[in-house]
């Protein structure tokens, strides 16, 4: 009976968790900048999630729960993330939104975008990835990273601004100038 119950639990866990494997791997590889370590961390995250599965409430947000566990595992590899000195969150958030940022090229290659992303500090990069790529809400991202929503907002604004600055640098390097009518909105 125990064996059967254990097999059923594992099957339930796999059906809930495995569909998110690729998303977790993408996040880990972009945060760590190292695909082989990302595999190790993702495996560790799934093992931790399996051990905690009895505490997971069916019907709740499994994806956010897994990402929270992933970042807990990622912290073991990057313990200095949350010691990054920040301005007061509200001031920085507002400041990042209204200062000048040059335009970027109309065409962006994946390589250029990923290279620019790599240059962003890891704590900003994580928030940009959670919100802009994985489409978590600010509240969900705050819960995953165990930080206040205000910190999510400030890091997101700074991270987006830095990304755009780096991409604009790529465009300027090619001598590409964008005029008002050249940018295609998404």
């Amino acid at each position: 009976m125990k064996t059967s119950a254990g097999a059923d639990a594992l099957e339930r866990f796999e059906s809930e968790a495995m569909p998110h494997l690729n998303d977790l791997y993408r996040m880990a590889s972009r945060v760590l900048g190292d695909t082989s370590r990302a595999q190790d961390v993702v495996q560790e995250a799934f093992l931790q999630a399996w051990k905690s599965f009895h505490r997971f409430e069916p019907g709740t947000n499994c994806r956010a729960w897994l990402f929270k566990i992933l970042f807990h595992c990622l912290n073991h590899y990057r313990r200095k993330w949350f010691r990054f000195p920040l301005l007061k969150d509200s001031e920085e958030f507002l400041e990042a939104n209204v200062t000048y940022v040059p335009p970027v090229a109309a065409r962006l290659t994946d390589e250029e975008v990923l290279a620019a992303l790599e240059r962003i500090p890891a704590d900003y990069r994580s928030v940009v990835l959670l919100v802009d790529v994985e489409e978590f809400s600010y509240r969900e991202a705050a819960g995953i990273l165990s930080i206040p929503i205000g910190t999510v907002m400030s890091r997101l604004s700074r991270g987006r601004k830095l990304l755009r600055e780096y991409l604009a640098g790529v465009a300027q390097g090619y001598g590409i100038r964008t005029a008002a009518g050249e940018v295609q909105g998404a």
Partner: protein
Amino acid sequence: MILIPPEQCRPVWQKMDLYLSKELGVAESVPLESHVEGCPYCAREVAMRRHVRSGLRIAVRSVTPPPFLEARVRFALLHTAQRPQGKRLLAPALAGVLILFGGSMAYELGYLRLTTAGQQHYVDAVSQRVSHLLAVGLRDHIECALFRKYPADAPPAEQLVKSIGAQYRDLLPIVTNHAPKPFRLMMVHRCRSNGRRFLHLALRDGSRTLSLVVTAKVGGESLAEGLVPELQQSGIPIYHGGAESFQIDALETPRHMVYVISGLSARENTELLRAMAPGLHRLFSSVEI
């Protein structure tokens, strides 16, 4: 052209990130949208920010995990789940051993992969969940198609036919015409395992792998002994099994067993072999492996 917001647009720019992240309530987003529609500066800035976000999403999502990552994680979970009750203290040690085991494994072309012993353990653990004749195809799929590296681009058809022989030329269109659209034929080869010879086609859609495996019957074996066919289409029985995320469907000719193995749903996997069955049965009733 330099984009610096006019003074009257500064409050809009301050909320633009919130607006683009759909974090603004209706009371704030409606007047913001109204302003943006009538303001070329703000419209340009919204378009620019959306452009960058879109490019970021596309670039990051273009990255695919290595094909064996799912197998590796499932193996680790299976190994952890099969520990006897009451030995929970070993869990961190076992997980640590698995991580260390993984960390000390050999690298091949920049990818981390399981050692032979680890692969074999995984294959044995999964294969024992299906009948032994269905396990023949499943084993070859896991050993040969999952634990390997693939080229970035699909090889040309002529190169694939060359690698297995012109007598199988008709096989490639049978498979490629019926395989689900994202899947591309990435590998065709002959292989050997446990004394059997196989003809193996592997298709991938980025992260998922689908195999067509053909092997000659040995010692009068038959899928009909011990298995009940799921479907009988055009008089060709199809036999089905599943283990973990793998679905296996098989048919037989007088001298061969033909398998389709994938991570598709049970229905999709069975329908795929059903669609290919007449062509496969005709081909492998006339050629030898």
